[in-house]
């Protein structure tokens, strides 16, 4: 009967090192020679063309399926094209070919999330004067980040070669997960300093209870379980680019992760992405707040990777399945370990949650589109800006909330009640706005006679 200790010794030599991986190994294929099983699953993010009721990776044009979006985002690049997302393999290609890049000026900041940008940041840092021996430091990433943010997109695009690569999430020697993206580091510092309770991120709660002398740093303090969600928060978050010339990529987390708190962040900063041409209100376009919505849901203690990169048995070894996609395409591994329930029942529950969200989304968009028309009509009838101020503030807030849920990619599943709550607030505000615009129009007409 081999005892346990002896077997442990044998097992350690399982991961045989074929090739040396260092901080300068930017090509995933090289990492793949040491970790063929993970690499095979990673490369499957190239597959697309499969639909789920509300998700999947058929890159269809959402503006055609949801025409109200063109009215809501009129005057902003997203009025040109907004497609269903697909595998990580495509994220550099898709950005390069979108009309939002080809027909509008964009800053280099986009590449923070749309390329394996670690190499470009380091090179740019050295070019900007950082001593070359510091090239592998976090400081290098920071300096390069600042440089590339400020570049026009086309110029920055020439500095990047690959979509998501192993080095974006893993430390070469230990394979430990680490955060490479400066915007998330800054975002987590803001979050840690806010009062928003984050029970699902205990390392932040512990930091808050400490002396707070050293700013919160996930790479030092976050647990392995937290990292299995934080690495996704490098990109799957709401963001904005600061004013020119810096155009720093910022996550609006100074007040917290909830939608009202992000709006407060923008209000405190007097920020608008653009002014809506018909309604005249100062609007923000919200993008994919997966991390923020997931934080409010019943699965906040379940890591993104638990569902989107689940464990898989391949032969005699258990690995992380790097084929990040809709969990509905892999329910057995993504859900059934924790939920001892039949596949079709689990799918039914998800689709029931998403169907409720979709029904509310449609009504909320109807209300926002009506509000835009009501403000425009009042304005044309001579209503003063002062009279339309309330309606425009309600437009800014209600459209922000509809965006927040509609552009989040789980169609409410990551936090079912919170999604419905946010859409309820959006509807209520939009309808109040319509009323206010009507009053302003009536007053203008009365004054006009």
């Amino acid at each position: 009967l081999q005892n346990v200790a002896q077997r442990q010794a044998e097992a350690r030599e399982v991961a045989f090192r074929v090739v040396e991986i260092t901080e300068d190994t930017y090509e995933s294929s090289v990492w793949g020679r040491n970790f063929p099983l993970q690499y095979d699953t990673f490369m499957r993010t190239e597959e697309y063309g499969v639909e789920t009721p509300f998700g999947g990776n058929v890159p269809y044009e959402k503006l055609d399926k949801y025409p109200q979006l063109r009215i809501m985002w009129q005057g902003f690049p997203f009025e040109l094209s907004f497609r269903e997302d697909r595998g990580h393999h495509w994220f550099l290609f898709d950005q390069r070919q979108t009309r939002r890049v080809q027909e509008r000026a964009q800053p280099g900041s986009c590449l923070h999330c749309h390329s394996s940008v670690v190499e470009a940041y380091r090179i740019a840092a050295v070019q900007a004067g950082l001593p070359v021996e510091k090239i592998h430091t976090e400081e290098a990433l920071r300096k390069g980040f600042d440089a590339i943010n400020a570049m026009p997109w086309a110029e920055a695009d020439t500095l990047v070669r690959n979509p998501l690569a192993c080095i974006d999430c893993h430390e070469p020697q230990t394979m430990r997960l680490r955060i490479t993206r400066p915007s998330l580091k800054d975002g987590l510092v803001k979050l840690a300093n806010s009062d928003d309770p984050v029970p699902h991120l205990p390392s932040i709660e512990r930091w808050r209870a400490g002396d707070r002398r050293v700013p919160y740093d996930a790479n030092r303090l976050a647990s392995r379980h937290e990292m299995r969600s934080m690495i996704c928060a490098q990109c799957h978050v709401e963001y904005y680019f600061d004013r020119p010339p810096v155009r720093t990529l910022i996550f609006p987390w100074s007040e917290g992760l909830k939608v009202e708190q992000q709006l407060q962040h923008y209000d405190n900063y007097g920020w608008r992405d653009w002014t809506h041409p018909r309604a005249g209100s100062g609007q923000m376009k919200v993008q994919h707040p997966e991390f923020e919505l997931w934080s409010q849901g019943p699965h906040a203690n379940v890591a993104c990777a638990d569902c989107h990169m689940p464990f898989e048995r391949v032969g005699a070894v258990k690995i992380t399945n790097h084929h990040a996609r809709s969990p509905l395409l892999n329910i057995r591994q993504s859900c059934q370990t924790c939920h001892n329930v039949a596949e079709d029942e689990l799918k039914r529950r998800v689709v029931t949650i998403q169907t409720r969200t979709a029904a509310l989304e449609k009504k909320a968009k109807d209300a926002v589109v009506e509000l835009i028309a009501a403000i425009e009509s009042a304005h044309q009838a001579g209503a003063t800006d002062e009279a339309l101020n309330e309606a425009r503030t309600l437009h800014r807030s209600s459209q922000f909330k509809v965006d927040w849920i509609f552009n989040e990619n789980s169609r409410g599943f990551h936090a079912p009640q919170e999604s419905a709550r946010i859409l309820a607030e959006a509807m209520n505000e939009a309808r109040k706005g319509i009323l206010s615009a009507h009053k302003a129009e009536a007053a203008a007409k009365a004054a006009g006679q």
Partner: protein
Amino acid sequence: MRDWLMGGGILLVAALFLGLMAGAGAFTADRAQALSYLSDDPQVCVNCHVMREVHTSWERSSHRNVARCVDCHLPHDPVGKWVGKAIDGWNHSVAFTLQNFHEPIQLKPRGRAIVEQNCVNCHIDLVHGIVHARTGAGAHASLPAGKRSGISCLHCHLDVGHGQ
């Protein structure tokens, strides 16, 4: 194996165990067939009705043919096993006598760490890659499951021992 336990070199350990129990549970220990507590047979645990439910659920679990109670709930290394038995024996008889334990019974941190380490002990070949993703020359000593390696098997596999 059962007979060997009853007859042979067990007296020394039984003395240690009985010593621990001497204070409060002399009479209790006897009536609860404390001596049998020293064996690895799951039937031992079900002497107490409060263990009946976990025994039944174990009999329906995926591990019924591959792991007995002690295989998960007592350290595998020889020394750790008997120290564990002594500590558990003491906790058990105190809790059983005073009836002051939290219900439903939940694994305490010590109990949970033992179980987590045992998952890795038996499944090391399968989970070596995810437990301690260490590579390259000079790999650190393999980190045990639980606190230090940061991965908790029970985060996903809570029901392997007792179904539900």
